[in-house]
């Protein structure tokens, strides 16, 4: 059977990176750490489905998820963050989470290893995550403009950064405390 044709469409891309994963591995060993990550990623996958998203891939101690409706993103992010304080497996084990969000056109494809998304927007979401501050989400201007007004008013001042191969990206920071 032929693989479905690649589909180009605009998606909201969420990148999440776990803080303190190296410490966890050093303190408790790689067997415990891998079990903890596995459980975290199982919950993350379930929560992405519950919020109408698609978990694209897990990369070491981070993941990339995609959403057709950007309104679903923040409830998903908040539910992921809540895992760290509510699930006994994670309490005290992770220092926190780094989130980034971008909205842009990507090519959704089926590969030998599952669904994937290709395009510059993926790189933008990942590079924004490098500007991380614990328990904040870094949101590109392109994504913020499409988000509910409540989040737009809470977002911090506009900043910009140039990324290799991508160019200048405008973004804002949104604190997750109190959401």
């Amino acid at each position, binding site marked *: 059977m032929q693989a479905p044709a690649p589909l180009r469409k605009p998606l909201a891309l969420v990148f999440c990176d776990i803080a303190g994963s190296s410490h966890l591995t050093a303190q408790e060993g790689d067997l415990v750490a891998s079990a903890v990550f596995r459980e975290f990623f199982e919950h993350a996958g379930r929560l992405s489905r519950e919020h109408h998203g698609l978990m694209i891939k897990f990369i*070491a101690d981070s993941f990339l998820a995609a959403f057709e409706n950007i309104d679903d993103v923040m409830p998903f992010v908040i539910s992921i963050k809540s895992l760290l304080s509510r699930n006994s497996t994670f309490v005290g084990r992770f220092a926190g989470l780094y989130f980034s969000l971008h909205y842009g056109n990507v090519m959704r494809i089926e590969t030998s290893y599952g669904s*994937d998304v290709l395009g510059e927007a993926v790189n933008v979401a990942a590079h924004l995550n*490098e500007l991380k501050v614990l328990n904040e989400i870094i949101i590109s201007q392109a994504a913020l403009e499409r988000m509910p007004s409540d989040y737009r008013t809470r977002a911090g001042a506009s900043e910009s950064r140039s990324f290799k191969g991508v160019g200048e990206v405008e973004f804002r920071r949104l604190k997750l405390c109190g959401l």
Partner: protein
Amino acid sequence: MAASDAEAMPEVVTEAIVVIDLVESTLTSNLFGWYAVGRHSLRDLRSLIGEVGQSRGLRCMRSTGDGYLLTFYHPQSAEMAAIRAVEAVFELLRRILMRNQEVSEERALNLRCAVHLGEVDVVPNDREGPHVSMAFRLEEISRASLPAALNPIPPEQFPLQNYVLCSEEVAGILSRRTKQWGVASIGLLRLKGFPGWREVFRLLPEEHAIDLGGGTRAS
């Protein structure tokens, strides 16, 4: 005073760092014997590296067990060291393919190669520093690495052997200074011990200088 304090600080130079790994060398040695096949393969590889590297600025060749760590130096230009290193690697691959046609199957050599450029500490018959680690990380990339990459090429398009990967630094130099080889992105990867995302490139020999990998040309 500790013995290490008494040692002179090592010379720091910018060199092209090449890691060459012999594909399935342990398996071949186990199957056909170290003395019958394995040692000859490694000696042949060492000899070929010497031949292709001598005139291209090869300064260091250290065994890694199943391959070699090489560095190339150019007295006038660090960027030229990278170009000479890539030239040497492709010439090595060419000679190895010719050799493979003349030897029995179990004595065939197949390689994985990675090229990076950076500052290294010069220690006797060896090199140290994070750029050396970076070259080893590049060499470790395989098809299995691609699902965890961003914007990866399809894993099926990643060769199993006799290929050359390089870092962003080397890809940038080649794109600026020569059209001799194709430079195709295989995706953005996280390399253990190095922060952030690194774009990794596959170099294509002259006859395939057009991107075959579905990636983009380095800019």
